[in-house]
């Protein structure tokens, strides 16, 4: 075989994967980016749409509804992810012990994750029902007033957050539990000998060692939280007002109700940029911390 052929061989083998990647991944994204520069109605073919440049992007900034929706999304994502992280990691710490029946308990804990989001939305909508829902009935039976779970703008966001926490805490729980159980047990024993209390073991040994897994988990959840749709769609459909209208819901409505595909595409791109920024920040932070340690070490060993 000639040297040139040899050099080309790896590319030959990579070609099918590259083609699939381009077609399946890059084409839709490129399509979406192109669409975001158009004033495009679903009844038109893409070729008939007028090119408007960056107007969709700039118009969105002056659109109060979009800004409201963005802030709801940020609030929602930040809250659910922090609550889920704290609860999930906390539960994992609590349940990381050898007691009989623990396997059953763990299985029950991860059930919510396995239910289809639409169903989750329906279940919670019935539970939040103002008169026949379990929450208000229980409150009334105990002698408290009904709570406007889905009809008040503060409560509806809270209700949506509760449902999401219920569904996704198990995800963080099982990942943290797996991380926790793969920690070197001798390091934890050493810390007990060194005099660490239970809390100190968690803060100084367990959490730092779990950090790589936790960062990835956090990222996965964050990305998902920005894109959540079905549960909220079924529970509140974004209301009352815009109080639970997160971006993905607004994008869906812009495309189907307002029939503005270009604007919807521009919004999707904003979301994409936001997520990419978050990911980049998280990884850069890690990289920077590592580089700093290496620098410190080198300085110390030379000096």
């Amino acid at each position, binding site marked *: 075989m000639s040297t040139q052929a040899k050099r080309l061989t790896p590319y030959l083998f990579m070609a099918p994967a590259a083609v699939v990647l381009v077609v399946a991944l890059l084409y839709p994204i490129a399509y979406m980016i192109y669409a975001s520069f158009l004033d495009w109605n679903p009844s038109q073919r893409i070729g008939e749409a007028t090119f408007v440049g960056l107007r969709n992007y700039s118009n969105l900034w002056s659109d109060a509804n979009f800004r409201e929706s963005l802030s709801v999304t940020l609030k929602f994502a930040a809250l659910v992810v922090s609550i889920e992280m704290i609860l999930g990691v906390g539960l994992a710490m609590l349940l990381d012990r050898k007691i009989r029946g623990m396997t059953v308990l763990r299985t029950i804990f991860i059930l919510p994750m396995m239910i289809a989001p639409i169903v989750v939305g329906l279940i919670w909508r019935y539970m939040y029902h103002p008169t026949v829902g379990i929450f208000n009935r229980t409150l009334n039976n105990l002698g408290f007033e009904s709570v406007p779970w889905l009809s008040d703008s503060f409560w509806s966001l809270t209700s949506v957050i509760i449902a999401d926490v219920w569904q996704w805490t198990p995800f963080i729980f099982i990942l943290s539990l797996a991380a926790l159980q793969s920690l*070197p047990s*001798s*390091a934890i*024993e*050493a*810390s*007990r*000998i*060194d*005099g*660490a*209390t239970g809390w*100190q073991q968690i803060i*100084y*040994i367990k959490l*730092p*060692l779990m*950090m790589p897994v936790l960062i990835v988990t956090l990222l996965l959840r964050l990305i998902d939280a920005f894109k959540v749709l079905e549960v909220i769609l079924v529970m509140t459909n974004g209301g009352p007002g815009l109080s639970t209208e997160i971006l993905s819901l607004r994008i869906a409505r812009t495309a189907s109700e307002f029939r503005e595909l270009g604007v919807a595409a521009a919004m999707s791109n904003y979301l994409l940029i936001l997520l990419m920024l978050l990911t980049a920040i998280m990884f850069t932070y890690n990289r920077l911390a590592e580089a700093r340690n290496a620098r*410190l*070490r080198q300085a*110390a*060993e030379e000096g």
Partner: protein
Amino acid sequence: MPILRLENLCKRYASNDVIHSINLEMRDREFTVLVGPSGCGKSTTLRMIAGLESVSDGEIYIDDRPVSSLEPKARDLAMVFQDYALYPHMNVAKNMSFALKLQKRPKKEIDQKVNEVAEMLGLTNFLHRKPAELSGGQRQRVAMGRALTRDAATFLFDEPLSNLDAKLRGQMRAELALMSQRVQKNMVYVTHDQVEAMTLADRIVVMQDGHIRQQGTPEELFKKPNSKFVAGFIGSPPMNFLEGTLEHRGDMTCVVGQGYILSLLPEQAQRVNAANQKDIILGIRPSDLSYAPDAKDGDALELTVLISEYIGAQSILLASCGDQKISVEMKSDNPIELQKNMKFQAVKQGIHLFDRKTEVAL
């Protein structure tokens, strides 16, 4: 200073007993070494003392205070683990100072202590490295250093040198001996290497199958093993064992076995005759045999040398006595010929006799 005492200490896992009622008292500032074959329960005992393993029965006393229900933290001890157990995310300095940091000692004091110990163990240049960036021997030293920065009253070591190469092990053994002289703390040291046990210990505790077989100073164990097991475990190369029976020849008591007759000293004869046991095992250390072409019958064994292992000034001979194998340790400059019958004189004080059934020393 605490005195460590184990009283009827037992450990059971589900159905199998691992430690059977151990009684042990360690005097103040004593270097105690637990030895025994793999799986005999040394680590389990040590981990019960440390508080990492629950006690199934019995009690551990430190300074007459029962501690078996206390957390490790409350027992004031430092431990070096068999597999180092360093904190992978902390650098060497942080590994060594973790305990002090938890005790909220002033930063200056911590730094000073860490530097002092690092200096002693030759770790000064590695203080900013993570464990993953160190060699096995360096990690071992960090593990040691982490224990030494503590001011604990008792130090526990679980085979701390097992992962080192021969040279480094010898070096660290000497360091440890020096250090134990200097710090004067209670030390409990687990090993299955009897050379380590002999060189470091004030007191050796020989364990087998969860029982203590014998305890005492290295010299006591070497000179007066109470059973065939201890005799075979302590000393290198290990003691030779030959089957034999007791016979009276004139006014002498002799051990007669396949291919040899050895007469006993009067006090030995008295002891074995009192035990009234005919079938015995004769034990003799390789170093208690010497080449002696002119030895009298009754003082010597006639051996056929099969192999001579030259290890420098000394050689280890593997020989046959009847159809049993026996090893001899002697100066290399003796004229040894292979496959020839030769006489080897036995040092009479070095003869050990054991009951063949119970394997207890007579």
